């Protein structure tokens, strides 16, 4: 009997260790889950909305999440190979990462070159915790804060100064919204604010949500409804706020896709008003999407179907004029958070389950063009609708994995690991990436 007992203990231990602290969501945190094939704590299926009940480590993941969730809030200024439209605090090849503490009550700015802490942004009142973060120009940030048990989001802004030092929090032009906002986005001209707002009327947490954009000068809000099963995890605006890009994670009712919505579109169902601009292929998932400031292209991260050991996630570029999709690179691990710089020339990606024996990942050596979708003239926008594409993942043997923060040059797909931060799963728990 002792043998079977020992076997049982060993088996339980192995299975239990598939759940790690950094991959679990905080108390009251929306169940932003990753795709069914193993992405981390963001969107495995439908997101379930719950009121935040405590200031636990519950930074929303999703486009927060995602932060959300997924481990820590990250933000930073950018590297300098491309001009920054609005200028930023970072010097050449220097940028900063913002992480949330486990309770979500403070953001810490760290220099990615040295790992040094350069500043802290604390929640403005006790009981509030950070639920989302966005920037349009890399210098001015909007923070969404939640409070335990309250179906409301309070919005604050702050500025990153020289050397990544954050200025004080002050109320945002839009003081608060009676929904739980996650994710949020700001246009580069800081004139338009976008968000997905979870309605909270349903205590079961299965209420639908809205996509909305607010003209910050006039406070005029335009919103589109999302069905309650839809799980939006990333949100981005063009520089002038004219288009809103978002992704929808796969659920039982929806296949995953990235959408582009003209913000002048009339109110109504968001998925009907928007153009489906990218699809992941059968069984895959679009993890995140970001639109370029000029609205010419959409970058998406895609997790194809397959087992964890076989899967390589992809970075794809979608030309929104022609619908042509290119695979910019294929990488190991699971992309948990994806945050592009304001010019959408580089991206910080938190990669979970990164093979520990691959210190410097390499993208595929050449671009492969995916089938060009047929532009669709209907549904009210000039943006074409691509057809689903199937891309075979690259197989590989299972290896020990670790979380990694990497920097990807979007134009070339080149990737490098950021090592100075000394990765801490606890520190990066409820991940939000933003520049």
């Amino acid at each position: 009997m002792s043998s079977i007992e020992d076997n049982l203990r060993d088996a339980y231990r192995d299975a239990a260790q598939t759940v790690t602290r950094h991959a679990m969501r905080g108390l009251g945190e929306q169940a932003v889950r990753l795709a069914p094939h193993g992405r981390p704590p963001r969107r495995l299926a439908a997101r379930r909305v719950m009121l935040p009940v405590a200031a636990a480590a519950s930074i929303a993941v999703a486009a927060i999440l995602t932060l959300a969730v997924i481990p820590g809030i990250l933000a930073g200024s950018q590297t300098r190979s491309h001009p920054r439209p609005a200028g930023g605090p970072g010097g050449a090849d220097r940028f900063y990462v913002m992480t949330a503490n486990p309770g979500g009550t403070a953001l810490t700015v760290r220099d990615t070159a040295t790992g040094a802490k350069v500043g802290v942004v604390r929640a403005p009142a006790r009981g509030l915790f950070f639920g989302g973060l966005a920037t349009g120009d890399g210098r001015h940030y909007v923070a969404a804060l939640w409070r335990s048990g309250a179906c409301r989001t309070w919005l604050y802004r702050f500025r990153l100064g020289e050397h990544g030092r954050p200025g004080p929090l002050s109320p945002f032009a839009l003081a608060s919204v009676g929904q739980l906002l996650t994710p949020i986005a700001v246009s580069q001209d800081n004139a338009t604010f976008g968000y997905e707002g979870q309605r909270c009327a349903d205590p079961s947490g299965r209420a639908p949500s809205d996509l909305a954009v607010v003209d910050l000068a006039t406070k005029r809000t335009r919103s589109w409804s999302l069905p309650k099963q839809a799980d939006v995890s990333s949100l981005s605006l063009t520089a002038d706020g004219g288009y809103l890009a978002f992704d929808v994670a796969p659920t039982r009712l929806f296949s995953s896709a990235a959408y582009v919505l003209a913000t002048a579109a009339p109110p109504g169902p968001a998925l009907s008003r928007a153009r489906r601009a990218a699809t992941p292929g059968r069984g895959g998932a679009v993890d995140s999407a970001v639109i370029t400031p000029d609205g010419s292209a959409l970058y998406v991260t895609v997790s194809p179907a397959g087992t964890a050991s076989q899967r390589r996630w992809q970075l794809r570029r979608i030309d929104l004029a022609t619908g042509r999709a290119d695979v910019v690179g294929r990488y190991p691990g699971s992309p948990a958070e994806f945050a592009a710089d304001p010019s959408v020339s580089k991206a910080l990606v938190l990669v979970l389950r990164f093979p520990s024996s691959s210190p410097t990942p390499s993208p595929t050596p050449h671009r492969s063009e995916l089938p060009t979708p047929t532009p669709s003239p209907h549904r009210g926008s000039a943006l074409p609708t691509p057809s689903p594409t199937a891309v075979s993942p690259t197989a590989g043997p299972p290896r020990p994995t670790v979380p990694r923060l990497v920097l990807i040059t979007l134009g070339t797909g080149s990737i490098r690991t950021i090592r100075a931060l000394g990765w801490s799963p606890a520190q990066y728990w409820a991940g939000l990436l933003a520049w």
Partner: protein
Amino acid sequence: MDVIAGNAEHAPDAAHGQPQPEEFVAELYRAHALTLIRVALLLLGDQPSAEDVVQDAFLGLQRGLSRLREQDKALPYLRASVVNGCRSVQRSRSRAWHRRIPHEPPVWSAESAAMASEDRRAVLAAVAGLPGRAREVLALRYYLDLADGEIAAILGVSRSTVSSTASRALATLARTLREQM
């Protein structure tokens, strides 16, 4: 949708004196959520469902905290809530199965590929074939290392029932694994 512009309502009520119930629950969550999620995972097979069950248990604790006379009863309450929550999920899965609604493959299945060792996957797959109460007893005894008395309190049965259930479960398990070899 209620959108407020300007500073009205901007400073939320932040008057706090004594530690709030939310803080107590949040502290419990930090200390025990991971272990409870793992227990739920062992009973359900997948992390999303396990997390949902544990979240619900903590939310339930928070709602009923005023009725909890002794704080050291909170953890046993949570354990019992998680076990009960797992039973509810299993029941709903049974209904969903009839409607052919899929759920996450269990972590020990080959489809999941979350566990590398085939032997250990086989052990857990065999456990999954046991009756519900047997699986609960084994998980609480061999993962949480709880005494039979504690397990009995969580499951609402006698200590002797726990002991006999565990014995029968281990015997069945040993036989099943022998037959597979």
